[in-house]
């Protein structure tokens, strides 16, 4: 199959077919809520919507997000080759209503109508030693992106120092501030360390983990589990109506930092957690 067609299918799947791990987490959350509560009613609507979107092959959420691609490609490939295929696929996906036109000129506020603009779609390229290509995609909605935040430790207002206890405090603060917005229950990606830019990059890369997949570092895995339990004690619930599930998972990772800097970037995605991945090996395409 042509690369453009394979990427179009990746976009279609991301927009219309919620991954099984996320759907299962939502079903679990639904089962925890009592009959007759707004929380239960919201989860009911969400679950029905997930099934309808898959069946009708239409976007589960009308905000089909900003397109963010991560491409790992073998030596010998060119970025131009992949970029052109992505642009063609994005235009076609917009024409077929898998995507809403979401690329707006920042000066004129004019919508390009096809999801193509300066730096849109955004593509991260990484060359690797494998003899295969991996293309990962996140459709990142505007509402959830707007509640992401970056903290600089120490933070005296939150009494958060330069240690994991401090990291924990700023993550709790970010989730508290996101309530009502960003379409809870959310999934939280955290990047500790790096510079201003790379801390956000690391936080978003965590979104390619499966729900329940813990960081191999025991200390960070413990932090993830503790945060998952405590954040769900907040009682924010779906859509911020109150309820037992506020987050579906928390993914944390670290990288080196400058001695003078200690950034913690927190990215938030809504329950409509649209990320998909595909591998191309010897002309064969495998979707996750």
């Amino acid at each position: 199959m042509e690369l453009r067609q394979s990427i179009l299918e990746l976009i279609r799947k991301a927009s219309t077919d919620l991954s099984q791990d996320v759907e299962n987490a939502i079903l679990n959350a639904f089962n925890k809520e009592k009959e007759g509560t707004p929380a239960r009613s919201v989860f009911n609507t969400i679950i029905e919507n997930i099934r309808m979107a898959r069946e009708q092959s239409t976007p589960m959420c009308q905000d089909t997000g900003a397109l963010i691609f991560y491409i790992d490609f073998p030596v010998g490939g060119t970025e131009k080759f992949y970029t052109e295929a992505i642009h063609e696929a994005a235009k076609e996906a917009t024409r077929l209503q898998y995507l809403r036109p979401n690329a707006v000129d920042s000066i004129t506020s004019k919508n390009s109508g096809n999801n193509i603009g300066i730096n849109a779609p955004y593509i991260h390229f990484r060359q690797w030693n494998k003899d295969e290509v991996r293309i990962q995609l996140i459709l990142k909605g505007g509402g959830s992106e707007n509640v992401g935040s970056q903290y600089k430790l120490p933070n005296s207002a939150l009494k958060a120092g330069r240690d994991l206890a401090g990291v924990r405090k700023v993550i709790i603060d970010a989730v508290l501030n996101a309530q009502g917005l960003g379409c809870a229950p959310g999934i939280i990606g955290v990047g500790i360390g790096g510079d201003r830019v790379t801390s956000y990059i690391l936080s978003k890369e965590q979104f390619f983990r499966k729900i329940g997949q813990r960081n191999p570092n025991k200390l960070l895995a413990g932090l993830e589990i503790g945060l998952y339990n405590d954040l769900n004690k907040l009682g924010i619930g779906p859509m911020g109506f109150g309820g037992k599930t506020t987050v579906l998972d928390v993914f944390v990772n670290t990288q080196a930092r400058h001695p003078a800097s200690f950034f913690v970037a927190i990215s938030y995605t809504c329950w409509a957690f649209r990320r998909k991945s595909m591998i191309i090996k010897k002309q064969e395409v495998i979707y996750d």
Partner: protein
Amino acid sequence: MIKLNIPISEEDIRKLKVGDEVFLSGIIVTARDQAHKLMVEEKPDFIRDFLNESVIYHCGPVVRKDKDGTWSFVSAGPTTSIREEPYQADVICEYHLRGVIGKGGMGEKTSQGLQKCGAVYFHAVGGAGTLIANSVKKVINVFKLDEFGSPEAFWVIEVKDFPLIVTMDSHGARLHKEILERTKKIAKEIS
């Protein structure tokens, strides 16, 4: 579950309380950031009749144009409402709205507007784009499509049994504000 039909009287809207679940039917209008700015700065009349005793929906839909030129909604969940906070109360009173549909709730100024002019804030389920599009039976008209682009245009639509929850009523109650106060205390305990 309360069934509500547009046009809605002030008397009926004032009966609604936070937590009420509603199925809404009738002709409503989508409006987002550019539309709200326009309604406050220029007070256009082309949308006036559609808004009288009706409801604005904060939504930027995915739409399809069929071969015969008619439009339909493909995916149409709510967008974050708080961006319209500077404009909303003025729009409610100027155009005699009975409600606003969105997500995330709104602030003090909008709450005052709801109380003064007799309207409520309905919360739709964020992300439920396909399900809500299925309750949109017909696209009646569209305004400012070329100028604003499809997410920001005024789409006049007929809905049937649109599922909603009242989270701000015309008596000053606000669900998200109550939850915020409660969760702030818990956050202190777990930090």
